[in-house]
């Protein structure tokens, strides 16, 4: 656990980098520091491993005041990943990953074993072990940076825009992998970014800072989006705050409606009645095994449904998808609703725009 207790950083020239910050980073969680440039997010992070010295207040790591530990000893217990990665160009990938194990005096065999494991963990092929950093792609170098930071299995990781220097596709993949990895390793992570979407995606909690290192709000992503503490936070979250929030809520949070369902054996008369009771001019066709067959508009229906030309839903959602995905399915379908299927592909009901708006209102 990392605790900031009224921590202040005043630089030599008098500017205040961080102003009276009180904040707790709980064990095993990802806390994202986010804000515009000049908001002191990197300064805040770098005070934890004393790359920058706090000038006021108390900063503790696992109950120990960081000012009582020598910086190198402190830093060896804290993984550190930066945007430019900072791999040593004169050392091979394996040697780069082995840097901290060597500093703390691990023997060769143990170090080698650890390097091998880590390369597999971050998804690097064995063949790059003896290459040099300049021979790798940006994404690969970033993985090496993460592996190097994890080398002696530090309980805490500091990550300063770790995916900032790679293209959007690689970034998105690295983010996914990072989240998957975090599920296994459960590190206490302080993550700095200026990208609010990345913050929402990566953070268990988000701290929004404004210029001069003032903490505007500290909450989990959903609370933050649902209830911004002030105008600054609302502005920073942006006009699409509602959509961002939908992305965080799973479909399972809303109970689907049964919907205007008919079976293939029904005829136009049944269908018209079902549709009217729902206030629609179309019906969903589901067979005896609850399999979705499609939908049909009353205007295109003459006799038996089985003989009609059924239309398909282009998209469907499952319980683990987000409401944002459900909304996307709605706007791409002429019916204006999203169908929800079970994992096995069986019909579970429909989700309407009213259901979604009720959830985020």
């Amino acid at each position: 656990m990392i605790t900031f207790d009224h921590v202040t950083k005043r630089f030599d020239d008098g500017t205040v980098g961080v102003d009276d910050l009180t904040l707790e980073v709980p064990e095993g969680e990802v806390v994202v520091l986010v804000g515009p440039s000049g908001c002191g997010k990197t300064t805040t992070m770098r005070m934890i491993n004393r790359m920058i010295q706090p000038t006021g207040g108390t900063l503790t790591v696992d109950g120990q005041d960081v000012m009582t530990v020598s910086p190198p000893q402190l830093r060896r217990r804290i993984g550190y990943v930066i945007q430019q990665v900072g791999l040593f160009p004169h050392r091979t990938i394996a040697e780069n990953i082995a840097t901290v194990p060597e500093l703390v005096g691990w023997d060769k065999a143990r170090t080698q074993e650890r390097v091998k494991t880590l390369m597999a963990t971050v998804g690097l092929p064995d063949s790059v072990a003896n290459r040099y950093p300049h021979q790798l792609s940006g994404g690969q170098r970033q993985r090496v940076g993460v592996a190097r930071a994890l080398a002696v299995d530090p309980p805490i990781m500091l990550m300063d825009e770790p995916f900032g220097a790679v293209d959007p596709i690689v970034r998105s993949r690295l983010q996914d992998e990072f989240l998957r990895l975090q599920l296994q390793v459960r590190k206490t992570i302080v993550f700095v970014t200026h990208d609010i979407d990345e913050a929402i995606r990566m953070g268990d909690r988000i701290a929004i800072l404004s210029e001069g290192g003032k903490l505007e709000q500290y909450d989990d992503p959903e609370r933050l989006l649902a209830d911004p503490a002030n105008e600054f936070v609302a502005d920073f979250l942006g006009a699409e705050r509602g959509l961002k929030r939908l992305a965080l809520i799973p479909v399972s949070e809303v109970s689907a409606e049964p919907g205007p369902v008919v079976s293939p054996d029904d005829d136009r008369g049944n269908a018209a009645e079902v549709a009217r009771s729902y206030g629609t001019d179309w019906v969903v066709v589901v067979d005896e095994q609850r399999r979705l067959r499609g939908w049909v508009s009353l205007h295109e229906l003459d006799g038996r449904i089985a003989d009609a030309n059924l239309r398909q839903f282009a998209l469907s959602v499952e319980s683990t998808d987000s409401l944002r995905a459900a909304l996307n399915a709605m706007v791409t379908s002429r019916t204006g609703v999203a169908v929800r299927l079970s994992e096995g592909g069986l019909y579970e009901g429909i989700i309407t725009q009213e259901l979604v708006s009720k959830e985020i209102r």
Partner: protein
Amino acid sequence: MNVLGGILAWFADPTHWSGADGVPVRVAEHLGYCLLATAVATLIALPLGVILGHTGKGGSLAINVSNAGRAIPTFGIVLLAFLVAGAGLLPITVALVLLAIPPILTNTYVAVRGIDRELRDAAEGMGMYGWQVVRQLEVPMAMPLIMAGVRTSAVQVVATATLAAYVTLGGLGRYIFDGLGQRVYAEVAAGAILVAILALAVEFGLSKLQTAVTARGLRSTQRDDPLAAKATAAPA
């Protein structure tokens, strides 16, 4: 053609290749002065350059010293040191060391200072002590430029060590000054040619050494440009 013939005849004369005044002995003496001066200069300039570069202090001193170095009239220093210290190795060594320090000091400082901030940041962030940053990051990274500085110095020293003969010592300068004194221009030219060849040989040898001490990971990222060091070098 008469001149060229004379020079060739000088080289062909076997008596010039043996004894205390023979080419092998003179070359050995010459190299001896150079080795001593370059080694002393490196021992002074390298640690100083690393310390200044690591701490970031005294930067203008480290950079301006190479400009000042060019302005020093080496010949005058050799003669002055001889007047003060008398005959022996000291005068020529002092002058040559003064000549050799600036390129090594400047290159070392610039190389260490020029290491990317994020590399130093990463090294410190991983928990390296200052001396570990120096040993594991800064010196290996700076090595190509440091060696380029040593190379520049050594070549200038080889050329300038010719002056040792003027203050009663040996070396290849003997041929030049003896020849001048006796107006035997073939001997003068032979001495000049030998110094030039020796300088080129030292240049070549040190460039091989430079490659050998450069970490493998750095070799393909940095263009090996033997001329890069020359931009700041003064003729000797």
